[in-house]
């Protein structure tokens, strides 16, 4: 049973207060996109063994969506941040780099590489 800090409430909320919302930082493709783009947007999910960025909602709480950077092998949480972002904040990326040198996830990676 995970605990994640809601960046809006500042509470360490346990999993039963939260709803999991899948992969973070998806780019929406609507009319005008080709079949491949639309397919990838809807179905092609990152499924990494290790660093993952995902969405959660503080459903039984403030109701806000936020992002978490988490390791799927150890459940370590590198940090949480507001959902209104196109990419993880540098501070979070640095934290991950410190703990998982050489990490990469989609277009994001250890900048020191």
């Amino acid at each position, binding site marked *: *049973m*995970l*605990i*994640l800090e809601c960046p809006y409430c500042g509470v360490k909320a*346990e999993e039963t207060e939260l709803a999991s*919302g899948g992969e973070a930082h998806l780019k*929406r*493709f*609507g*009319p*005008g*996109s080709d*079949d491949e783009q*639309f397919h990838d947007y*809807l179905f092609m999910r990152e499924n990494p063994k290790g660093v993952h960025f995902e*969405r959660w*909602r503080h*459903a039984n709480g403030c*109701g*806000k*969506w936020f992002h978490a950077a988490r*390791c799927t092998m*150890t*459940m*370590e*949480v*590198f940090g949480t941040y507001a*959902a*209104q972002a196109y990419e993880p904040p540098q501070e979070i990326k640095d934290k991950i780099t410190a*703990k998982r040198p050489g990490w990469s996830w989609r277009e994001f990676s250890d900048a020191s590489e």
Partner: protein
Amino acid sequence: MSTRLAKQGRLIDRSKQIDFTFNGKRMQGYAGDSLASALLANDQMMMGRSFKYHRPRGVVASGSEEPNALMQLGKGDRYEPNQRATTTELFSGLTAASQNHWPSLEFDVLSINNKLSRFLTAGFYYKMFIHPRPLWKHVYEPIIRKSAGLGEAPDKELKDADSYEHFYFFADVVVVGGGVAGLQAAKAAAASGAKVLVMEQNSHWGGRAPVDGGTIDGDTPDAWIEKILQELRGMANVTLRDRCMGSGVYDHGYVLGYERLTDHAPGQGGPRHRLWRVRASQIITATGAIERPLSFAGNDVPGVMLAASMRDYVVNWGVNPGQKVVVATNNDDAYRTALTLHEAGVEVVRVVDARDTGGGELMEAVREKGIRVELGRAIARVKDGPRVTKVAICAQNGEGGAQEEVEADAVAMSGGWSPVVHLWSHCGGKLTWDKEQAFFRPDPNRPPLGDNGAGFVVAAGSANGNLGLGAVLEDAAAAGSQAAEAAGFPAKSVAASKGVAEDEALMQPVWLMPAKADIKLRMKTWLDYQNDVKVSDVQLAAREGYESVEHTKRYTTLGMATDQGKLSNINGLAILADSLGAEIPQVGTTTFRPPYHPISMGAIGGEARGEIFQPVRKTPIYDWNDANGADWEPVGQWRRPFAYCRSGESRHDAVNREVKNTRENLGLLDASTLGKLIVKGPDAGKFLDMMYTNMMSTLKIGKCRYGLMCSENGFLSDDGVVARIDEDTWLCHTTTGGAESIHGHMEEWLQTEWWDWKVYVANVTEQYAQVAVVGPKARKVLEKLNNQAGGGMDLSKEALPFMEWRDGQIGGFNARAYRISFSGELSYEIAVAASEGQAFWDALMEAGKEFNVMPYGTETLHILRAEKGFIMIGDETDGTVIPQDLNLQWALSKKKEDYLGKRAHLRSHMADPDRWKLVGLETVDGSVLPDGAYAKGEGVNANGQQNVIGRVTSTYHSATLGRGIAMGLVKHGPKRMGEVIEFPGTDGKIYKAKIVDPVFYDKEGEKQNV
């Protein structure tokens, strides 16, 4: 025989005698007894039968690791099978019965399996009963299943008489185990100011230190324990809980505590078990160690016990398990048992020490008492029977020849100790093999990792592999400080109490006694008592290629019994390693899974039973509905009346009555469950244009529009009427149960995709009671209410036309009236404050009397809409249906560049002209089509399945039309009007139906537009 001693028994109160029964026999014990100690005091050594061979079994341990002494406890609604006698506190009126035998414990027919044991080896059933095939199903399997299980199942109608609850608690440091290590660790952690919770599974504190002796800070362990408990109780930051087992460690510092509140006093009131759900920053496992049996032939005969457990029975409960005892060991600790027995007046026939060099000062002390100690010797076999009678002794380093036989009625055995590493391991803590002491211990470099990526479990004391009293206390103090520091409390150095006990010589691993025991002995040498797994079984598994430890476990069932291998795992691993010519750590362990010790399902479920099993959502009119014949239908968490059944009326008749009355007179529907969302802001129109497939931004203030929602994947997800309230405010109705999900859906898009759009959404569903006033007399009843109140809003056709809404007063109630219709009748949906909902309903019922008003339920709602060909989300849709399938193209805005689902509809399968489309269906004979029936096509597909060309989505008897009507999705349906297609029923009949227009009633819509 086993008897109560005149002296000893630190846990019992001899002034309080307690009566109980075992297998119907009346017996006596004392307050403080466990059921096991009380049975032993009554010379009841045999306490059960094993699982497979039904061999007689006695108690072998004194704690939760006990595999044999399992009882059926209690009666009626407090009955429970498989309770360990060793962890059951004796109480007055306790009734216990032994398990897994017929007709009696002493004489058990299935002990024939014991005679057949040569055939019934590990995995025999995988190799047998294969031919002929029918015999497996009809003969063999029924026999195997009949003989399965341990205790009798509770009665099929049993309703648990007890209640259960949960409790959330937060601590900086949780200490699991209230032995001297746990107490010492708690003290060290608490000194730093950390908030500490200590859990102890027993009703007494201190663990086994008081039995094992030695001194702590110069005091007896008992005295020291009393003192430190007092200290801890005096600290505001420390919570001590006894009868509370740390049952599992989970991710991110989650610990479960299983508190048994009334098991020792059933029926005293209050919850029976409380499941503590604790979030800890750090967890200290001070869970002690468990003694290992020795593997010799006949090591399962009643009277063979773990040496330290035998000592427990003498010291803690003043019970003497036998008169003449043989002690067998590979380590020094068992000598303590010899000394304890001797002191209690029991004859120690022999100490058989497998080590050639023997032990240290404890051995000398034993010899000084005149007890015969034999080195390099082993037990060759214990004579089979319901009780130990004879023990054969031989050289350890041989095959079991040249035996000397001695008379004895009990055997104390010690194969060394294994730290209890379960809680360390539950969440991924790794182990390391300690070669010297021959056990797995926690590897401090590989602890389970918490949310911050750092270790969150610290092992302490013997659970950490420190067996000597002095080392235990030092390790525990260090663990306490370490945990507090890791939890963010700079450690105050707390000096460990000084423990002094006898020096012990090294143990010597002995995995088989004698070392080269022949196959006949190995086939009588038990590893797993409860599941009847023997040394020969593990060797067979290895020989057959089941080499992985998990294969061996599963093939032999080693460690899969209710003790989860607490006694058998290491011994079995060692035999497996030996068979494979590998080292034990290479073989590894099986996975440790929670719970440490079985916990009640009741406790896991907690308070959620009966009335509060799940929330029932109630509308403001719920109680009235309930009192007026509502036949309830669960819709999500809501309950809605399916129909209002009058006394003696069937559901079917009630529905027909409601349908007709609503069409002819006046019906009321409690529509409060429909979701109501306010969407407001400068970008609200733009936003709703994305949410709905049709255009909402152009809706005029005061008007309503029916809207469709699709998921991004193109499927219909919800529908409802949207009303424009003012320049930047809309009110969106959702389906019942849609309020929360659509609210969430809107927030998701606003927060995560279009966060710069200025839109706020609020869910006001429950602010209102909403009543649909439906039927030709709808306007009349509302106008009557207004007349009675001396005025109110103008509800005329002109002032409030179809698909518009107005605020005002109706019958003196502040109300919002929507002129919308889901029935094809003249209809108003009126929203009033929920707190006034019942009063408004009452007023309508009263005023409606002269118009023959009747409430109607969801089934009538369904039929009325089906007669009109309106679709229903959840009936015509099922998550695979797109608007085009339902001929709803008109609701897909072509003007909008984008809306959720638009892109999805362009994919090839969604644009496929062969998709099944909505039509009406009329049976040729007027009967009702079966729900969910499929229309048969020509031939079969490549997998031999009948081809199908459509299916029924809704089907009803229409009281209005006096016949069956249905809607369905049919391949090329709209182009096949008038065709008759066939629906095979599951009743063997073929239903023939004609494809028709889905609007069955009032095709021109004259009735709603009056």
